[in-house]
């Protein structure tokens, strides 16, 4: 477990070091290239705004009205049998459908439960470890005109289930509940 924690701290600085040393070695104008790529990051952050505002307002209304607590309390005893925290359910449902939507729900969970809580860590892991199945399916198959998708959706969604289960197991194991 200590290795996992160390890995989390080391991986980003090591990658940065590697990129810079390799770039300099290859004679790349590193600073100019960095600035050029960075501009894209700015427009990316701005382009997420409408998605996040839309999703956060919806989830905010749903939560503030009391409807969310009602739903979560109803399913709680059932999920508790399997050790699944009910708070994570909205995220698990949205994750395969909309990436930015899931990002909104994750942000909401981090705010409600703090990022360093069990729910906060679980939400972060779930958001990072899988991709948006429906999006990938629609965009990739749509772009090249594949109409019969075969078992693709089934495979994707089953893998997402494995993602939820293994997130719960590993986050509980490494950080405790």
């Amino acid at each position: 477990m200590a290795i996992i924690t160390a890995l989390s701290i080391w991986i980003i600085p090591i990658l940065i070091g590697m990129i810079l040393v390799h770039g300099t070695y290859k004679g790349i104008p590193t600073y100019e290239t960095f600035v050029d790529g960075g501009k894209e990051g700015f427009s990316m952050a701005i382009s997420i705004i409408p998605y996040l505002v839309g999703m956060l307002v919806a989830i905010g209304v749903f939560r503030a009205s009391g409807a969310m607590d009602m739903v979560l309390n109803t399913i709680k005893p059932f999920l508790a049998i399997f050790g699944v925290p009910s708070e994570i359910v909205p995220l698990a449902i949205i994750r395969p459908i909309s990436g930015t939507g899931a990002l909104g729900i994750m942000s909401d969970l981090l705010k409600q439960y703090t990022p360093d809580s069990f729910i906060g860590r679980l939400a972060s892991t779930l958001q990072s470890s899988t991709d948006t199945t429906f999006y990938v399916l629609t965009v990739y198959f749509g772009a090249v005109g594949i109409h019969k998708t075969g078992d693709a959706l089934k495979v994707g969604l089953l893998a997402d289930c494995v993602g939820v289960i293994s997130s719960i197991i590993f986050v509980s194991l490494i950080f405790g509940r």
Partner: protein
Amino acid sequence: MVNIIWVAMLVVGIVYAACNGTMDKVNQAVFNSAEEGVTLCLGLISILVFWLGMMRIAEKSGLLTKFSSLFRPILSKLFPDVPTKHPAMGYIVSNTIANMFGLGNAATPLGIKAMEQLKKLNGNKNVASRSMITFLALNTSGLTLVPTTVIAIRMKYHSAAPTEIVGVTILVTICTTTAAVLIDRFFYYRRKRKGRE
């Protein structure tokens, strides 16, 4: 699908509030959440600018291509129907690497290119081939090394250790990807048994 869920959350919320007298809270939530959405995105700028800047260097210096050649042998095992020298393989590898480094925007066009090539390999039929399904499985299980946006949002909400989830994420990703590959194989052999492939 996302349209239905989005509308359902809002409408159910408003109707529930009307029945339970929580309309004032709902009213507040609309404005607070909208503001939250904007501040959150502004907070993302810092890390996205930095990371995409770094990745541009990695791309220009050929480091990403190096990583690609490292993963090529493993990936070509997963696609027995694709010849190793075929351009499809090249796109599949670059797409996987782009996804690993959290370059979603760069990954999508590469993925579409890969699909185009796979379709050509499959005689331009409009049916998903075995390799296409495997490629999709790999993509949806999402191999991520550095989840930049998630780290940024954790920072925004004052996490004591924003990057502490990186290790777990990699572990979980390995699990899901392995599962995706196994499930994909299972369905392939099932199709084969039924004589559909």
